[in-house]
């Protein structure tokens, strides 16, 4: 069974009287441990598809099955709980909380778990070690470079040991060197930690680091 099963998904956005169909009957399977790159022009529906897989948006029709759960069928509260246990999200602009240190940012999702402060900090430090930033644990985001911020964001995404990592243009705001480091890190997470990764990118070099690339154009997937 695939880790991600998207079947007949349709997504329509409504703006006043205007209905915009972004995805229309889309099917997609992502196997466990796969590293998939989704490419395509702006407005092709990449981020919409990523949001549906991550459970932060709901399809207008069709089903999205992730790690055996029909995400679209979950209530708001159940979906939030499901996200915290199953999905790690990596944003293009990192979206770290500026008032928190790197360690606190990474430990943020663990506030939802029944863990002591010590346990939360230990797990956060483990995640920071994996991304190579244990020595920056007490630094605030503004004291970090863009590449380091993204690594902290990745640590935050993996700290709950999710089954799936979704990344929306994870290198889109980085210079070439930092982008390379981030891609290497994602490759490690996929290869060594068996994380299933779905990554949206515009960058063909970034896409080449994935095991499989798919192109999305006007809501239609092309191999």
């Amino acid at each position, binding site marked *: 069974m695939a880790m991600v099963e998207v079947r007949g998904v349709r997504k329509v956005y409504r703006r006043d009287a205007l209905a915009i169909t972004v995805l229309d009957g889309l099917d997609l399977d992502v196997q466990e441990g796969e590293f998939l790159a989704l490419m395509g022009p702006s407005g092709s529906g990449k981020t919409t598809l990523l*949001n549906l897989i*991550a459970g*932060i*948006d709901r399809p207008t029709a069709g089903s999205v099955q992730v790690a055996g759960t029909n995400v679209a069928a979950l209530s*708001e*509260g159940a979906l*939030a*709980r*499901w*996200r*915290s*246990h199953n999905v790690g*999200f990596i*944003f293009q*602009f990192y*979206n770290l*909380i*500026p*008032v*928190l240190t790197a360690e*606190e940012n990474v430990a*943020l*999702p663990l*506030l*939802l778990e029944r863990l002591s*402060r010590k346990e939360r900090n230990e797990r956060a430090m483990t995640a920071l070690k994996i991304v190579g930033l244990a020595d920056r644990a007490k630094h605030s985001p503004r004291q970090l470079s863009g590449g380091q911020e993204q690594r902290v964001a990745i640590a*935050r995404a993996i700290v*709950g040991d999710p089954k799936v990592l979704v990344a929306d243009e994870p290198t889109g705001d980085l210079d070439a060197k930092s982008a390379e480091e981030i891609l290497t890190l994602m490759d490690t997470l996929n290869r060594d930690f068996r994380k299933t990764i779905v990554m949206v990118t515009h960058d063909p070099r970034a896409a080449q680091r994935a095991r499989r690339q798919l192109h999305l154009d006007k809501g239609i997937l092309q191999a």
Partner: protein
Amino acid sequence: MKYLPYILKHLKRHWVRSLLTVLAMTFCIFVFCVLQAFLAALQRGLDSTNANRLVTRNAVSLVFNLPVTYKERIAGVPGVQRVCAQNWFGGARKAGDFKDFFPNMAVEAEPFLEMSPEYILTEEQKRAWLESQTGCIIGPATAEKYGWKVGSTFQLESFIPPYRASKPFEFTIAAIYATDDKRFPGTDKTIMFFHRKYLDEATGRQVGVGTFAVQIADKTQAGAICRAIDNLFENSERQTHTETEKQFLASFLSMAGNLALLLNWIGLAVIFVILLVTANTMSMAVRERRTEMGVLKTLGFSSGKVMGLVLAEAGLLGALGGAIGILFSTGMIRVLAMAPNVGPVVQGLGGLPGPVALAGFALALGIGLIAGLAPAVAAYRAHITDLLRHV
């Protein structure tokens, strides 16, 4: 509690804004607590009045005295048990120095002691007072304030012209009365009473009577007796106005208008303004953090939890301001207790009343939560994709 550091860090992010909001809330709760404490003190005074006592005064104004001869005629009204002539002396250790003031009254000692069981004296103390022409009895709070004991002497000078003599009045403390807060709650612990005849003798003239305290047998007959007394003097040059002791005190307090209403309106106006200030702070805080709210929801925080964090932040602002406001108002009540004019009124409270402090804290928390409600609901309802799009 595990979210507290997170909330505190957010409040620290714009610390000037947070501090100003807390200070605004502090001011609001300070004003509320001081006004309510003052009202509580006034109410306490009203509650301490005796329903079996009436007060007869000049119908035109308290400023004008009544003839001493009225006493016998009032005493003859059916239902009247006892009458005591009394004058508000208005004496201070230095005439007109209200920074160093405690209330003092000239009374007819015998009827006064009979009809004022709230001022507790032993038979020996009563006798000591009755036998001393310049003797007086004082409240325990005043005795403590000045370090006076039985036998201590002091001088007072009145600022009221008819009560001024060629030299200050000399007094000797005959007794320090006791009070019983259970039987007679709100009894003034500061007031001093001395012999009325000393007032006449020292001034060398009949100064007249400020008010007559009238003890009646049946409090249900108070209305009828008040009318009967006033009817006696209806055609006199100096007409009287008689009312219950509680009504007298209330009307005395309301000479500056409806004080309670005025104070409550001031309090409400301040609360409303602070509500707007806090609501504005919270709206700005949430608007600036839309993306962050989206991130929290993406990480698995439910909409309810995000709403709770916003409300907790607003509530914490309110609670902090409330706690500081209560501290300041506690200090202010202590300062007021030492002030000349309001001091005697406030002293009886013995500090900020617990219910007022509790109400102040609840109000602060309530203002914070109400102010945070609209942005919290907005955060609750906002969809993750909309929040994240706001970058």
